């Protein structure tokens, strides 16, 4: 019989709630003996997330975000800043125990396996996606997905972005390019290193198509059935507690 994992399907929430849900699932995975979980979600309002180690003000154009109504949040995972465009981006997350036989103990190897599910999904839509270690997925040599993983509470939590039709101009208005790359030429080069599914395929791409493709990718790579479900009452309580942390300046502005 095929193993069943839980799918929390295309929940639309603000930035503190989305980050609180990912952490709440990780925190309760072993405590409540919940199933392994895949989430697909969108951020409303659109938001920038910075990596755990990043400088908020060096990475994010805070004035532009405020003018555009774009939220700003810090993740518990490392890696780079991401623009989660409500109209053009799907985020996924996966939580499974470190001891799960389907989850390599080695962090790099587990990136490859989890990103492999995204790659598979994108391929079903005709995107010739490729995993680029440590944590990127490219199409036609340009980044189309960024991923970040943490390990805590005995589990692997990986989340990542899939650029469907993200506004790449706005992306580079809200994200600050580091001083090391500040010339116009370099900014152009940075923009040229990123793509999205609509640009790559040269057609409109519906969220539903991407959702279906990602579900199929996870099911194929992990040999599981994803069964739509909801958060447990315990997870919902943890979400409420964690939302305060993620909303606080103390957390968001800590570095």
């Amino acid at each position, binding site marked *: 019989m095929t193993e069943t994992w839980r799918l929390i399907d295309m929940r639309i929430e603000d930035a503190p709630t989305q980050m609180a849900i990912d952490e709440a699932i990780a925190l309760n995975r072993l405590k409540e003996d919940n199933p392994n979980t895949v989430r697909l979600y969108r951020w409303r309002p659109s938001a920038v997330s910075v*990596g*755990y*180690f*990043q*400088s908020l003000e*060096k990475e994010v154009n805070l004035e532009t975000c405020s003018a555009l109504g774009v939220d700003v949040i810090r993740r*518990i*995972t*490392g*890696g*780079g*800043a991401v623009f989660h465009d409500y109209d053009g981006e799907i985020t996924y997350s996966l939580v499974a125990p470190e001891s799960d036989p389907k989850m390599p103990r080695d*962090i*790099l190897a587990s990136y490859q396996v989890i990103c492999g599910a995204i790659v598979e999904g994108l391929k079903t839509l005709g995107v010739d996606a490729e995993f680029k270690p*440590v*944590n990127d997925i490219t199409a036609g040599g340009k980044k189309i997905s960024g991923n*970040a*993983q*943490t*390990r*805590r509470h005995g589990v692997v939590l990986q989340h990542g972005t899939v650029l469907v039709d993200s506004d790449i101009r706005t992306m580079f208005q809200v994200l600050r390019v*580091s*001083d*090391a790359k500040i010339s116009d030429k370099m900014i152009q080069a940075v923009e040229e290193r990123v793509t999205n599914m609509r640009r790559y395929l040269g057609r409109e791409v519906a969220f539903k198509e991407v959702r279906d493709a990602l579900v199929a990718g996870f099911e194929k790579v992990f040999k599981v059935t994803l069964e739509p479900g909801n958060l447990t009452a315990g997870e919902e309580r943890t979400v409420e507690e964690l939302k305060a942390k993620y909303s606080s300046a103390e957390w968001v502005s800590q*570095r």
Partner: protein
Amino acid sequence: MKRAEYKVPGGKLLAAEVEVRDSALVRVKLVGDFFMHPEEAILGLEEVLTGSPLEEIEERVESFFGEEGITLYGVAPGDFVKVIRLALAS
């Protein structure tokens, strides 16, 4: 405050913000898009470097990462030393 950035070849971006008084680091913040597991270890690294005489920076970084259980991706221990030196020289 002095600041420098260093893009690790084939790796991630690392930056250091430092303040020096009487030939010792009195404040150090290490930022970037790298990965460190467990993440909170960065606070321990900054703590062991705070108060460090400038000539002890390398030794303290090495001894910090010499302990078991800290995994880095996109940067190596020596890159932290390098970016701090760049910030000091800026």
